[in-house]
């Protein structure tokens, strides 16, 4: 046997895990088992710095992340005004605020909506709410994936949202994960569990905001259970600061005729990944996964999107759009697996990118694995520039080149922005986009026009 060296960066987390486990030794046995199993998985995997032969991280260099030290369990204070200024907000929404991974009753705004249980995940764990014991970490955290494993090893608090069978909360449920402005670099493990009962209609907005000025690590994990006939409209807004690392996981389990629609708005972080898997596990289930990502400077945004059609008559749709400038980089990795039993599946994948500069890079990789024979599937990806003919058209009407480019970029984004239905949410993503376009344009060059 060769000398045992720990996988990358495991040592940086092991002490924190040991003290976390000790401090939480009175946790329920099932939870302790989940944590130690997850830690064992992470200790074997480490931070995935090896790219060769590693399809999942082929285009993403995590060595800068592996080199950083993060503190655990230290948080700062946050005001409601700071939260409202940094993300979408509507007083009418039921809002759950989680600061540095810990639920804040004080900052949350829960209005006792009928059929809705929303609040602290730690509280739900300790009181054994609903099916939490069987649900928590059953979709995410037991797989061979370093970041869900690491996050699950530290699972403690976060947000718990359950919608009772046949309930139809009229207003969105907003879950805000805040990284506070405390000193130093800290790791946090935001967690959200959504239990959507049969025949419910739930709108869930998941927002990540970062008030710190230094590099932070956030490893959010979201698990969604959609019971038969449940409709879940999920939105994800990622607004990390430009030095931070954000590697998020969403795992969705769908039963008969359930529908999961998710739209992501990803603009923050130095390296960010949104890793979604939807499991269409009963006939008639459908999912629509949408997103808009914008990158500038040396940012990287990855969309790791996969759907498994396990049963017949399910529909999946993946559609993402990216706008890249400067020396930034984005990855779209879309995967659809249609299993042998999943006849009459319908799957589409699309990723469209607008590259504004010579230095920007997109790696788009839609893929289909089909084991059934009666399937409708289509996929495609494009990377284009600002069209010169279109630019000339706008200029001939008196709009100067910069303004014309801004109009075209905005037009490219519009289709995705329109997916953000709740009004205050739409206004927020629209404002951020309008503020971002001049930044993207400032880093664009002539090669971004063709």
């Amino acid at each position, binding site marked *: 046997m060769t000398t045992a060296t720990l996988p990358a960066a495991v040592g940086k987390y092991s002490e924190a895990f040991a003290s976390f486990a000790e401090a939480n030794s009175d946790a329920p046995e099932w939870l302790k088992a989940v944590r130690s199993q997850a830690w064992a998985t992470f200790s074997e995997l480490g931070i995935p710095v090896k790219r060769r032969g590693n399809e999942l991280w082929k285009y993403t260099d995590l060595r800068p992340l592996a080199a950083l030290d993060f503190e655990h369990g230290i948080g700062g204070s946050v005001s409601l005004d700071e939260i409202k200024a940094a993300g979408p907000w509507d007083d009418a929404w039921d809002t759950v605020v989680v600061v540095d991974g810990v639920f804040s009753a004080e900052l949350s705004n829960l209005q006792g909506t009928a059929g809705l249980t929303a609040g602290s995940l730690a509280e739900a764990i300790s009181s054994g709410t609903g099916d939490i014991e069987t649900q928590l970490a059953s979709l995410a955290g037991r797989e061979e994936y370093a970041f869900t494993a690491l996050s699950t090893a530290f699972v403690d608090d976060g947000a718990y949202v359950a919608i009772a069978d046949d309930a139809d909360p009229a207003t969105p449920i907003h879950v805000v994960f805040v990284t506070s402005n405390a000193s130093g670099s800290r790791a946090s493990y935001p967690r959200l569990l959504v239990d959507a009962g049969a025949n419910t209609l739930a709108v869930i907005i998941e927002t990540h905001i970062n008030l710190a000025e230094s590099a932070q690590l956030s490893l959010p994990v979201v698990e969604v259970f959609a019971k038969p006939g449940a409709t879940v409209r999920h939105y994800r807004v990622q607004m990390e600061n430009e030095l931070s690392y954000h590697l998020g996981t969403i795992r969705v389990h769908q039963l008969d005729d359930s529908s999961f629609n998710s739209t992501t708005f990803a603009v923050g972080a130095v390296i960010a990944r949104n890793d979604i898997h939807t499991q269409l596990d009963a006939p008639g289930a459908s999912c629509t996964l949408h997103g808009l990502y914008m990158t500038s400077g040396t940012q990287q945004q990855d969309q790791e999107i996969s759907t498994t059609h396990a049963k017949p008559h399910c529909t999946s749709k993946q559609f993402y759009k990216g706008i890249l400038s400067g020396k930034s980089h984005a990855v779209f990795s879309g995967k659809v697996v249609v299993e042998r039993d999943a006849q009459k599946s319908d799957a589409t994948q699309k990723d469209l990118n607008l590259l504004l500069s010579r230095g920007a890079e997109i790696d788009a990789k839609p893929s289909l694995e089909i084991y059934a024979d009666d399937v409708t599937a289509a996929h495609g990806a494009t990377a284009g520039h600002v069209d010169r003919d279109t630019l000339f058209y706008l200029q*001939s*009407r008196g709009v100067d080149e910069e303004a014309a480019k801004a*109009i075209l970029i905005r037009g490219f984004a*519009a289709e995705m922005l329109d997916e953000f239905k709740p009004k205050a949410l739409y206004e927020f993503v629209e404002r951020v986009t309008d503020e971002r376009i001049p930044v993207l344009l400032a880093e664009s060059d002539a090669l971004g026009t063709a």
Partner: protein
Amino acid sequence: MLEIKNLHASVLDIDDSEILKGIDLKVGKGEVHAIMGPNGSGKSTLANVLMGRFDYVVTEGDVLIDGNSILKLRPDQRAHLGMFLAFQYPAEIPGVRPWQFLKAALDSKADANGEDKMSVRNFSKLFDEKIEAVGINPNLVKRSLNEGFSGGEKKRNEMLQLEVLQPSLAILDETDSGLDVDALRIVAEGVNSMRSPERSFVVVTHYQRLLNYITPDVVHILVKGKIVKTGGPELALEVEKDGYKQYMAEAEVNA
């Protein structure tokens, strides 16, 4: 108003690609000139060069508006001087609403000319009036600019822009192509209603039929990059009857 002097133009970055081979033309204030010619004669190139399109280069000659050369001006600056090009194939621009785009165009022009921007309220009023005048389906202009528009709808939309921007020199690049008679009539009505002593038109067309509805003051026949004949409206009828053949033969002899 518009004066073109010995204009030569080639395709950018392509050797021996001269398309316009010495064009001389004067369009006075309030005049409507038709430029007719067979396919490949350079008439569309002329329209685009006048507006400053990026993929042509002027190698000789000059273009003057009110006595000032415009060749160094960008397309948007030419628009601010009152020039307008109605496109043969207007670009489809997803996600951009005509309303929003036209407001931006008017704002830029106001900015460039040191005028006050029109208020959103006044613009909306103007826009609604023009929509009715052009007969464009109001639902259409709520959508993306030209995306999914039929050929006729695109041309109507060009007329809408013409009406809103009120240029002093409008160049119509084969605006009649792909239009049925009804749509043709609408384009012609748009142009006719905008004829004024202060506004000039250059109507580029292959066919005479548009000129049944828009009576030009002067007709030019353009063949192989040169104007081979200039005359009154009757010249268009001659072309309708005899085609371009005789002019092409003349161009061969002169070449």
